[in-house]
């Protein structure tokens, strides 16, 4: 069996004083791409935030292991340096800090952790140009302040660019497809697919089935009210597209598929 990259066991969490995650169990192995779907407010972003270490999310029960290590004991930057990446649903604007400088700082922080030499300005430039071309991020977006005045699509492409640069072992994409037109969606999906590989695992959080036409998942999970109520193959996403989420609320939590 392939290495378990992410193992979540009985995870419960609160945010804003509300009990949001009510017992999540999920295992992602190397090479796998899982999709996590669910209605608004089901806890998808809270789960993503909990994995990245977002402040304001209190873990009240359960465990998360990342490559055998207790993920929840690590600071957000330690998680990132070890290869955990969250593509933000709402990428943050940082006035006065150039995207180039930010990307280089991030890449060199991760490289330092891997025991690699920092890239100098020229080396960085050649790497970033190559990756930026993959997700069609133009040069002027690299020179501008991080995400400032970027369109929705540009922000999302910038997230995928960061992912391509940092080459994470576990990538969590939080609704990277929301608000994108079909061209932008294809660009984002190309970036994600370029990174797919035997040594990596990805958790793709989405509201819509259409992203999964481009990023074909190995498994699909449905989250409602803080629990995974159904897991299945990629055809589950199509079923959800047709029938919505309400029919699942009558089903008993967890199906046999998750035990695979």
């Amino acid at each position, binding site marked *: 069996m392939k290495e378990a990259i992410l193992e979540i066991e009985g995870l419960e969490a609160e945010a804003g004083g509300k009990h949001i995650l009510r017992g999540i169990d999920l295992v992602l192995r190397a090479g796998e791409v899982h999709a996590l779907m669910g209605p608004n407010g089901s806890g998808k972003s809270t789960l993503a935030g909990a994995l*990245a270490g*977002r402040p304001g999310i209190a873990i009240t029960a359960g465990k998360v292991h990342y490559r055998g290590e207790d993920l929840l004991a690590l600071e957000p*930057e330690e998680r990132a340096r070890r290869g955990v990446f969250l593509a933000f649903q709402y990428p*943050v604007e*940082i*006035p*006065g800090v150039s995207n180039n400088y930010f990307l280089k*700082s991030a890449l060199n922080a991760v490289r330092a952790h891997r025991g690699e030499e920092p890239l100098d300005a020229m080396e960085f430039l050649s790497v970033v140009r190559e990756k930026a071309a993959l997700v069609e991020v133009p040069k002027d977006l690299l020179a501008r302040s991080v995400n400032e005045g970027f369109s929705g699509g540009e922000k999302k492409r910038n997230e995928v660019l960061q992912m391509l640069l940092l080459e994470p072992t576990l990538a969590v994409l939080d609704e990277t497809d929301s608000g994108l037109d079909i061209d932008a969606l294809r660009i984002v999906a190309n970036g994600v697919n370029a990174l797919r590989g035997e040594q990596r695992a990805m958790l793709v959080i989405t509201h819509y089935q259409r992203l999964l036409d481009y990023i074909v998942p190995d498994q699909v999970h449905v989250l409602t009210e803080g629990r995974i109520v159904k897991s299945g193959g990629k055809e589950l996403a199509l079923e959800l597209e047709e029938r919505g989420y309400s029919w699942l609320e009558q089903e008993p939590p967890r199906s046999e598929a998750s035990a695979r």
Partner: protein
Amino acid sequence: MSGLATASARWLARASAAAARLGAGEAPAAGALRRAGLEAFGALGLPGTKLEEWRYTNLAPLAALDWQLPSERVHPIERETLEALASPVFACGLLVFANGRFVPELSTLRSPEVEVTSLAAARRSGDARALPRVGTLVDVKLHPFAALAAACLDDGVCIRLPAGAKLEQPLHIVFLSLDEGAPVASHPRVWIEAGRGSVAVVVQDHVSLGGGPAFTNAVTELHVGPGAQLTHVLLQRESTASFHVSNTTAQLERDARLATHAISLGGRLVRNDLLLLLAGEGAEAVLNGLFLCTGERLVDNHTFVDHAVPRCTSRQLYKGVLAGRSRGVFRGRVLVRPDAQHSDAKQSNPNLLLGDGAEIDAKPQLEIRADDVKCSHGSAIGRVDENALFYLRARGIDEAAGRALLVRGFAAEVLAALPEPALAEALADTFAELLEKP
């Protein structure tokens, strides 16, 4: 208050005693300025916190030290030290002052477009072009420190740009504070007259070379002639044993443009007064400021923009960053006089508080007496955006580096407006270093 009164009397006595020595053989215009200064300082004394203008800036630490006027000693200054200071500005001229006195051996001027005279030389020669103008823009009856500076009139620089002169590169004036054993107070003056249609950038740079207590009381007067474009950069990067009070008074004539940049990165107690009179229609003023307060420092910026005639524009952006147990003050007054229709004034003062012990007193003040104007102002006090910090941390950047990056980003807007990109970058680095090791 008695501390301030005692100090005022002591300073007045010192200035009176020095007048005989400094004033020996000087032209009548200089003597008149000196006497007006002595008289005004005698009447005003050091201002106390009961005065609205000085409410948040307690001068007791300044008054507590026994300040001496600079000696006649010649200070050895390493050329390398000077080069390191001068390097971020690719200047057409470097004018060096040590404790307020001009050092011709270390100064260079490569541009024939500009006339430069030291004030000491002008005082002695009675320079008929520059000398009678020095002191005419600043009102010593309203500004006790400008009065003190006039009373202690010694050296400085008179810069004259003839009509149509265009300086391709900035003129860099470096004021060095050097130790003299006792606390030393210097009162350097800068007079700049930008003739009709002239264009220039002048960098007024205050630096400490020694770590001993120093007090700089600078008075700068800028006369921007019709259609002239002047950029004035005031850099304060002195040691934490330094006190700095500056008064910059400017008058803008028709269609003149003045951009001022006040970057305060050093000093234990800094007070800057910037007073602009928009005296000619179509004049345009840009006021940029960045102040960094760390440790127990205090930086106080007072600005006053006087829209005296119609159709003038002013754009003001002052940003403060306050860490540790520091104090900041910003008071920005904009006056639109009854005749000044179609005035367009904007003022913005965002401040970033980094420490729980830091404080800022911000007071923007618009006084509009005309009815057809566009004016806005705003002041804000905020903290580092935790959401942005998490974003950086989620990319592997540690918390301290992330905070520093966000603060640098906050400052970048002001620094980016500087006329020299290399200077902006050097100052951004100094800014980051000071934040790390105040």
